[in-house]
């Protein structure tokens, strides 16, 4: 086991895999920063180049590219409030709020440092879990996956503002999210729901288009109204100091970063949950670390823990999401589906063999993710202070550029003008929510988990009738869901007594 771990490392640490990895990182870096060329599309374009490579080289190239795109996506989230990818939207809430307080450097430092720790923790958690990972994945049937989605939805309680009014708003926003998730052709009877005779809506709302609208548009309107730079009128000198402060923050809240990394790895391993879920659950968990109602109010207004949680989960999930692809041949995302194509081209057969006979190759992939993250984070630190200065540029000069990011980013999800309309519509909804003090996080959680919960509930009932309710893991998850809901209330009572 340990032997395979090191053998995997030595496989990567040869000049050819390292050279290909560097090339992949370079490509992934630009793809992550630029909107319009998603990580999955780039993988598809690069796939033909791996024909002539050895497996370790090919995966160093492809995974290097893929791992980096996840990290750099956080940068646009923090700086402009524009999610570079669907999976980096949760960083916006506190990351961009920090940028507005003039702490862009600190937020970026925290995002990158937590990404790095996330990647490393994720890789090691995976290494330890490999002997039990097959039974673990097989234990999670449809009933368990349904309950896991319910645990995720339960985090709405933590993501809402304290007090009955805040809770009510949070749950209503979550309900709206669940409702929006039902748009499209349903998979049980094939009936079109809320599609209003529009072909575009058959496949449901596109997550990227919605997220870009609901988060980026309100920020742009705000910036236009304020007529200042993103960081207000703060002196430039105060901004550039922060990057290292963000790294220190990561170690100040070390255990939170570790816990969020583990959440990310676990959700990553579960096939069918998806990376977006991991980030929001980690954000929900980060808000639970607030010790008082005062502290809780700081979340969404620029608490660094709100950057650390999602940052860590975002990268630790990458290692985890390799597992369903490698061990079962079941890709968890589009990018993994394309990567699976790469497996076949290289003559590797995903399946139990990858965890025994080809274990070093599997570990070489995990190492690739770690090394690629280290390289990216170090490279980014050189650029951070320059990037952070963008937040002092006058808004009127930035807005056109950000709008280009927004609309190209949303249009590329389907290459359809409907994407733009969805972005504008949810931009309007997002703006009204911000003005009215309604939380946006529960809405996103509802939207992301709605379809997952619906499908797995249907399958559970159709397959097991009521018997699934008594499965042990379902019961454990049910207790966890209750605990997640009760936690903010207990916390408040404790705070009131103190």
């Amino acid at each position, binding site marked *: 086991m340990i032997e395979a771990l090191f053998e995997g490392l030595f496989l990567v640490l040869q000049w050819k895999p390292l050279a290909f990895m560097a090339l992949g990182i370079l490509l992934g870096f630009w793809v992550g920063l630029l909107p319009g060329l998603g990580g*999955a*599309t780039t*993988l*598809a374009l690069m*796939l*033909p180049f791996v*024909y002539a490579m050895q497996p370790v080289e090919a995966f160093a190239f492809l995974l290097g590219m893929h791992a980096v795109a996840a990290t750099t996506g956080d940068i646009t989230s923090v700086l402009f409030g524009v999610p570079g990818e669907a999976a980096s939207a949760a960083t916006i809430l506190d990351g961009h709020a920090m940028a507005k307080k003039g702490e862009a450097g600190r937020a970026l430092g925290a995002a990158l440092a937590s990404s790095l720790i996330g990647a490393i923790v994720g890789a090691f958690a995976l290494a330890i879990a490999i002997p039990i990972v097959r039974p673990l*994945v*097989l*234990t*999670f*049937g*449809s009933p368990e996956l349904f309950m896991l989605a319910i645990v995720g939805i339960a985090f709405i309680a933590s993501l809402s503002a304290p007090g009955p009014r805040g809770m009510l708003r949070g749950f209503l926003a979550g309900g709206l999210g669940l409702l929006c998730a039902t748009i499209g*052709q*349903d*998979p*049980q*009877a*094939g009936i079109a729901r809320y599609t209003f*005779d529009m*072909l*575009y809506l*058959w*496949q449901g709302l596109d997550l990227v288009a919605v997220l870009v609208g609901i988060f980026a548009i309100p920020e742009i309107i705000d910036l236009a109204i304020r007529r200042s730079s993103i960081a207000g009128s703060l002196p430039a000198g105060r901004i550039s100091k922060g990057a290292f402060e963000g790294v220190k923050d990561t170690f100040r809240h070390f255990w939170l970063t570790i816990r969020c990394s583990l959440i990310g790895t676990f959700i990553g391993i579960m*096939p*069918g949950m998806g990376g977006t879920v991991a980030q929001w659950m980690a954000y929900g968990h980060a808000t639970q670390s607030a010790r008082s109602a005062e502290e809780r109010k700081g979340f969404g207004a620029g608490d660094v823990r709100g950057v650390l949680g999602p940052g860590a989960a975002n990268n630790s999930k990458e290692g985890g999401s390799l597992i*369903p692809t490698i061990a*079962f*041949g*079941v*890709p968890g995302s*589009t*990018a993994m*589906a*394309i990567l699976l*194509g790469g497996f*076949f*081209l290289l*003559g590797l*057969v995903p*399946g139990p063999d990858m965890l025994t006979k080809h274990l070093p190759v599997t570990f070489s992939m995990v190492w690739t993710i770690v090394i690629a993250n280290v390289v990216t984070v170090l490279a980014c630190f050189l650029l951070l202070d320059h990037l952070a200065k963008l937040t002092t540029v006058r808004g009127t000069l930035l807005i056109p550029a950000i709008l280009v990011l927004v609309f190209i980013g949303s249009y590329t999800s*389907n*290459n*359809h003008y*409907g994407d733009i309309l969805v972005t504008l519509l949810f931009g309007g909804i997002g703006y009204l929510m911000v003005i009215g003090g309604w939380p946006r996080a529960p809405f996103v959680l509802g939207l992301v988990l709605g379809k997952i919960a*619906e*499908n*797995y509930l*249907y*399958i559970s009932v*159709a*397959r097991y009738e009521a018997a699934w309710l008594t499965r042990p893991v379902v019961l454990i998850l049910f207790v966890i869901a209750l605990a997640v809901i009760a936690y903010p209330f207990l916390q408040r009572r404790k705070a009131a007594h103190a």
Partner: protein
Amino acid sequence: MRLVVLLLAAVLPGIALGQYYAGKTVTIIVGYKTGGGYDATARVLARHLPKHIPGKPNVIVQNMPGANSIIAANHAYAVAKPDGLTIATFNRNLPIAQLTKVDGVKFDMTKFAWIGSAATESTILAIRADLPYKSFEELKKADKPIVIGATGPGANTYDFPLLLKEFLGLNLKIVSGYQSSADIMLAIERKEVDGRAGSYSSIVRFIERGLVRPVMRARASEPGIEQLPVDENLAPNARAKAIMALRSAPEVVGRPYVMHPGTPAEHLKTMRGAFAAAIKDPELIAETKKARMELDFVDGDVAVKVMQEVLSQPKDIVEEFSKYVKFGE
């Protein structure tokens, strides 16, 4: 002078032979997002087609997902120019969408300029290898319901077992809602379901790994599954046979490739030739063999016949068919 002659000799043939495609870009529109079979096939073809088109144009792939490919087909039918530079590939079940009069369909499948199909996709039913049923007869005698995982109506994972259950009396219980055919495979592995239907190409690796065993197939065949019993041959009456045949018919045209209906005949002829040659290209074959992607060219004339066959069914059959099969995926 000699130089000029040489230059003319080099350039003229291109112009003289009317190399329309020289210096141009051909776009293949795919009706799905990146990451699936339709997209992968188009990208392999895009790499190997240029060699076989006179004038060696660029060939690029553009994804136009949405409404199970109806958007892409509408685009190729009415929006794209009939200049032979836009090719579309989309859901093989679109003739079913036209037949059952799905809202939003603005094309007539028989009128496209059909290049043909790049592959045949055969649907099979596979069940867990540890179950005792090895043949259709044994399957028919099963006293406990066999649980079949499916994605949703309109997909072969759902429609094929549904017709087996309705018309051949197999004791199946169909559970739909899985996100992809790979997710069903995982459900089979954890014994949540007993089997699944789907295209042979997506199941073959799991057959080789010993997880599942193929037991039945639809009309279209591929090397390796010729011996399996065919659903429509076991039909108890003519009506059942017609409905099963109707569901299977588009599978012969498993990866459809078309151009705008008004495309000039010479461009269509060029493209048919190029597709036929590219699919026989040893380099392409080496590549697809590695990727386990079985390509096989079916000429456009055959494809048009299949479309006509599907779309000329008597009204009562269409009505009966619509009760069971919906367009989707």
